């Protein structure tokens, strides 16, 4: 019997050195989805890959395909993976989408990343009706958390943490310059936030100059050539590196070469990329301060002033949405029985009405004919009204016995309803509710 399984690793379980080996870039994600779909037992799938987590959501009979899929990326991930099934998988995914599991709880980026992951899965046709419904509900939960609680207010974005860190080193940035390497959104907003600390110059270096121009406009900076990077490292005081390169863009050797020309001025390197773009060995030099995403998380933990109350409210919203999702799913699972029952009853009513009408032959006019058919339908509706309501209520509350009993009582073949009602729900359990496993 198929169910939703979630396997993944995140900033909570795995260090950045492991995450960067498992993470997907834009192009490799499509290949990954294709690989996942080809694995036996996987009916639907979705992959969420951000700097802080890689999670695979599948509709399958077990979590094994997802686990093997992640281990095929890097065997080192083995000790860091977590698994969730059914209700727990839905809850985890909702919490992720609502930014409750984020490194910076309440940050807004994750909702967009989850949407993008769904868009990619839908484009690759790996997200079927089941995961689509799960995602739709997760977006509702995320939106409610964002609008109904203050969890995201006044916080926490990577750029704010970067600002906090830089402020502890330099105080303010007047007379100093910020260099942004790469032209992603996160880097751009960090550079902009740092410019607000009073930085004199913001320099942007990116392989694509057009994109660099766009970012430079946003952060009120100047575009510099990517090939000038060693020279730029000598000039800048704060260097934010956020590219999608799979290797070190700033190496320890490059930093070492700048020390003397810089006259050992303090230098702060902030690496927002996964895989990392700044060699962690850079931190060994005096007056060079280097941080990666994991370090930023430590800052968050240190400066996290309990928004506990808001977090509790947000968790309650997520829980309510998980319950609503499950109820909806259970109801849908009961629909095959209901719809088969109704189809059978309507067929009988039609047949009996036909019989009666053919016996009466010429003695009945068009008006009488319509009255007989309406009566047959009315009898079916009246008879089925109470069972329909009870079956729906039972299914919504997770009661598996009643729909099963109804199927047995009315002699409904298990294969019949699926064919009859929602063909896309063929994978959905007909009687037993999956989260009851």
């Amino acid at each position, binding site marked *: 019997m198929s169910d939703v399984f979630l396997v993944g690793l995140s900033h909570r379980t795995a260090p950045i050195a492991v995450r960067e080996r498992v993470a997907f870039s834009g192009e490799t994600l499509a290949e990954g989805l294709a690989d996942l779909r080809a694995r036996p037992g996987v009916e639907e799938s979705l992959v969420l890959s951000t700097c802080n987590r890689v999670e695979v959501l599948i509709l399958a009979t077990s979590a094994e395909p997802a686990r093997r899929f992640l281990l095929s990326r890097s065997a080192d991930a083995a000790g860091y993976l977590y698994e969730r099934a059914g209700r727990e998988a839905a809850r985890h995914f909702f919490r992720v989408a609502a930014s409750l599991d984020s490194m910076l709880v309440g940050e807004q980026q994750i909702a967009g990343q989850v949407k993008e992951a769904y868009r990619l899965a839908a484009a690759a046709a790996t997200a079927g009706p089941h995961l689509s419904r799960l995602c739709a509900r997760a977006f509702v939960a995320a939106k409610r958390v964002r609008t109904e609680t203050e969890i995201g207010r006044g916080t926490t974005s990577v750029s704010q943490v970067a600002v906090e860190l830089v402020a502890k080193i330099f105080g303010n940035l007047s007379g100093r310059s910020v260099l942004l390497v790469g032209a992603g959104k996160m880097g751009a907003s960090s550079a902009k936030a740092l410019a607000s600390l009073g930085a004199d110059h913001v320099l942007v270096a990116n392989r694509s100059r057009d994109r660099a121009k766009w970012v430079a406009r946003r952060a009120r900076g100047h575009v510099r050539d990517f090939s000038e990077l060693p020279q730029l490292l000598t000039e800048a005081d704060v260097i934010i590196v956020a590219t999608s390169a799979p290797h070190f863009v700033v190496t320890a050797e490059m930093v070492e070469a700048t020390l003397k020309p810089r006259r050992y*001025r303090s230098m702060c390197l902030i690496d927002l990329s996964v895989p990392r773009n700044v060699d962690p060995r850079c931190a060994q030099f*005096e007056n060079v301060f280097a941080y990666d995403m994991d370090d930023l998380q*430590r800052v968050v933990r240190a400066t996290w002033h309990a928004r506990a109350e808001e977090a509790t409210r947000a968790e309650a919203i997520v829980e309510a949405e998980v319950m609503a999702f499950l109820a909806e799913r259970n109801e849908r699972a009961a629909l095959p029985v209901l719809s088969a029952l109704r189809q059978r009853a309507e067929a009988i009513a039609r047949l009996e009405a036909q019989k009666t009408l053919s016996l009466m032959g010429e003695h009945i006019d068009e008006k009488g004919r319509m009255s007989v058919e309406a009566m047959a339908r009315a009898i079916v509706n009246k008879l089925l009204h109470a069972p329909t309501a009870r079956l729906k209520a039972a299914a919504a509350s997770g009661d598996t016995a009643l729909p099963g009993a109804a199927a047995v009582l009315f002699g409904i073949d298990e294969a019949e309803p699926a064919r009859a009602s929602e063909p896309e729900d063929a994978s959905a359990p007909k009687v037993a509710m999956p989260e009851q496993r």
Partner: protein
Amino acid sequence: MSVEVLRTATVLYAASAVSYIFFFVRPHRVRAVRMGFALVAGAFLVHAVAISLACRESGGTQFFALRGGLGMLAFVGAGLFLVLEWLYPLPAVGAFVLPLVVIAALPGLFGLGSSQTGVLPSVVRLPALKVHVSTAIGGVALFAIAFGVAAMYLLQEREVKGKHFGVLFSRLPSLESLDRLNQSLVRTGFAVWSVALVTGAMVAKNAWGSFWMWDPQQVTALLVWLLYGAMVELCHMGMHGRRYALLTLAGFALLMTSMIALGTVPNVTRHGGNFQ
């Protein structure tokens, strides 16, 4: 009489130190800073009264002994702290400097260290001596505050560089502001110490007949001057940060050791070991 007043001043210093430490532990209690500042200011005034009483009682000669000298150091240190707080409001510094002030004031209360003072030879009763003593104490006080600031720098650097981000990380000021404060304290201290050295030589000329006698007092004072002078030069050459903070600690350690050694070991200096 003056000792009772000094006691009051010391209690006030201690209370202000507690206030600043309390603020350091609970940084949102901003009121603790205002209270701490008021207490230091009050203690400073009371201390001024104690000093003037002591001068009236014994002509102020005890300030030329180690015990009185340290008390004077506490007084000047507190005054400098008040000025610093006015110029660079970094209240976290109070938690590090005021305990030093209290420690310097304690020997005066409990009679630790030498206090014997003779009658000063009339030959050294010159305006230069007054300038010499006050600049020497001022220089030591500045170096003492620099010591506290450098210690703060090293603690914060350990947090920031070692990625601990613990309690100190959020409480201590930024590395840059500590570094700059340390540098300007060392620079000012060096300038003040230079004046003390020159006036000291003038006093020596009057007392001993020569500007330079290779007296241990003079030699250590010169060593301290050279060390801090080198630091000022190194700062111009771009040295800063951790190494600079370590040098500041070393400089003050040298200064303290020489001061205590010269003040406690009898007859090691030409003026009898009691700064007379």
